[in-house]
């Protein structure tokens, strides 16, 4: 009985507010986070199948963040009739009411999708009137539902990788503070991935395969878009035909590092800037001394020594699996061997 009093008060309050404001679903008031993922009705059919409802658009990035070899399904829900305006440089300015949805999973066997997958977590970024808000939903072992968890969790996971090797690790799912560790621009929470340079690529929409930006324009999600040929495009980091070693390494550094290492990111205190647009060699790390690296320096003198990956602090930190030295600090426990190899190749090509 005592427990039901707050519920009663809450309902009274809701009723009171609704009487004054009939349409409060438009994001005017921040909605309380839902306890389960299914309550949002983003998907149709079995939740684990992740088949989007009408109005929920799947998307992919050219070069995604490395997350311990987890694979990701991405969706965006933009309020009807409120298209996003094109901008060439930054993450798209999605209207209030937008939700970005990202589900992390491991395939049972990366060589054969038919063997199934294990969904780990679904992260939501909701654009409310007061700003972006992150929520974390963790999938149950039965794969029937994902539940809100503010404090994060860890779970052991095993899979067979694309080479047929058995892999396993203790997978970490972030607490809400950790979300902002990366999703942070000028100390405000913000999405990282969906900029036009990341979206400028093909996606299979079931019946058709189409450039995502063209598809967004056709379906009324994007306006003021210039001709497709003029739009910047981040190369796929692992597609040698998509760009030079330098451009692919820079793409990898952009998505894996620049959310912190940019003039508006939390690692701005270091003076090391790895965003796609940076051109100053010192800020990119070339012969730059570390500031507060501590033992993260690995005993090396400069972030990048041209031609000398094994003398470059950057290589040490992206290769390390020691929490006190590794970069990024969050979101990985293993080394992205293929990404690290690409950065190594790039540093080797730099003139000594």
């Amino acid at each position, binding site marked *: 009985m005592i427990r039901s009093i707050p519920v009663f008060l809450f309902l009274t309050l809701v009723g009171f507010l609704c009487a004054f404001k009939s349409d409060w679903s438009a994001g005017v008031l921040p909605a309380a986070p839902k306890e389960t993922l299914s309550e949002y009705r983003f998907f149709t059919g079995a939740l684990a199948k992740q088949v989007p409802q009408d109005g929920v658009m799947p998307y992919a990035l050219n070069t995604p963040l490395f997350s311990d070899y987890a694979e990701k399904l991405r969706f965006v829900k933009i309020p009807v009739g409120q298209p996003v305006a094109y901008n060439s440089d930054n993450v798209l300015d999605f209207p209030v009411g937008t939700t970005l949805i990202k589900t992390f999973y491991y395939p049972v066997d990366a060589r054969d999708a038919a063997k199934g997958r294990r969904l780990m977590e679904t992260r939501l970024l909701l654009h409310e009137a007061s700003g972006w808000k992150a929520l974390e939903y963790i999938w149950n072992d039965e794969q029937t539902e994902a539940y809100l968890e503010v404090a994060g969790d860890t779970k052991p996971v095993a899979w067979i990788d694309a080479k047929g090797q058995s892999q396993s690790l203790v997978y970490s799912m972030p607490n809400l*503070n950790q979300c*902002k560790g990366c999703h942070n621009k000028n100390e405000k929470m913000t999405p990282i991935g969906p900029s036009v340079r990341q979206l400028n690529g093909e996606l299979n929409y079931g019946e058709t395969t189409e450039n995502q930006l063209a598809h967004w324009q056709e379906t009324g999600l994007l306006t003021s878009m210039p001709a497709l040929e003029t739009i910047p495009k981040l190369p796929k980091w692992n597609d040698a035909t998509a760009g030079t070693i330098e451009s692919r390494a820079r793409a990898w550094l952009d998505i894996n590092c620049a959310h912190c290492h940019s003039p508006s990111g939390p690692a701005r205190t270091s003076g090391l800037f790895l965003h796609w647009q940076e051109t100053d060699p*010192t800020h990119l790390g070339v012969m730059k001394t570390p*500031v507060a690296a501590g033992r*993260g320096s690995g005993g090396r003198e400069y972030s990048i020594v041209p031609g000398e990956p094994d003398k470059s602090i950057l290589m040490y930190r992206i290769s390390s699996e020691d*929490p006190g030295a590794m970069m990024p600090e969050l979101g990985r426990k293993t080394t992205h061997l293929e990404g690290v190899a690409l950065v190594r190749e790039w540093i080797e090509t730099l003139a000594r």
Partner: protein
Amino acid sequence: MKHWLPFILLFATQVAFAQADFQKKLQRQLILADDGDTIRLEAGTFFLTSTMSLEGKNDITLLGAGKDRTTLSFKGQTEGAEGLRVSNGKRIVLENFTIQDAKGDAIKTMNVEGITFRRVKTEWTGEPKAENGGYGLYPVLCQNVLIEECEAIGASDAGIYVGQSRHIIVRNSRAYHNVAGIEIENSQMADVYDNEATENTGGILIFDLPDLEQKKGGNVRVFNNKIHHNNYPNFAPAGNIVATVPQGTGILVLATNDVEIFDNTITANNSLGTGVISYYTTEKPIKDPEYYPYPTRIYIHDNVYERDRVRYQGKGRLGMLFRYKLRFGKKVPDIVFDGVLDDSRKGVLPLCIQNNQNAKFVNLDAANDFKNVSRNATLYNCTLDPLKKAALTLNK
């Protein structure tokens, strides 16, 4: 004996279970805290595996049962680069607890307006070593920073490190077995007083470095401190600026403007009692066009100096220089100025030295290959205006 085993195992698993519980509960409290809350930590030693973080909150107190009574140990840390991380808040108080063996920095607070560390201890246990985390107490890009009655031990960079911040007081604290005891870096309006820095590589460092967001430090007062026996071998990982600090350094001022050092006892620091140097002396490249690499308006007065009758302790090139070129033997001067001057400001004295007890001086003339080494301090017998007191606003 054997029949005890199941009980011991049962007890061990329960402890482990309780610890995981503690970690999750604390992190949940930190996330769900309402502005104005006090979060209490009970007495005991708790083992954590992940960074604990407080983000975007105002008027929060994290209160332990006492330094060394509530201990959060990160010995088994598998995730996150700090023990405790506080970001984007206002008026945060950390009080009465110990953070041990964090994999990276012990407590990092970033972009907080009003941050108090009171009776907080950060330590890395065991022999000081390069594998220890970099910083103990580490406010960066903060305003109104109060550090009092704290203790910092074993940091492989700086025990108490205030970086790129403004309005700072560090007092009644103790730093030992760190590479740098207390370091004020690219920070403005700082008072460092009534502290003890001992058995570090360097006691107190006042640095301005290039390529940073907050470009300029300055108006730093260091007074009434006991800075002694800072002769610990440098164990910083190479690449870090503090790895260049000679063992046996009392106070080192690097490229900072407006520093007043007075009423300290600076004893038995057997290389540089007090060093005043430009960034050029670090032999690191400068590419930041806005960076000013020379120290200026450094006022060293009314300190008591004393050193043991031993040779210069530092190693490396500077050590070689002191031993073989400068040949001071056991009579190493107390106040060492590298003598590197800004040619565009000829005739302006970068430092004044007055009324110190037992202070011997040397100008190394480093810019001219040590040609005119001078031990004559009379040129620097001048007065500078006292610097302003640091004033903090910690309440609403």
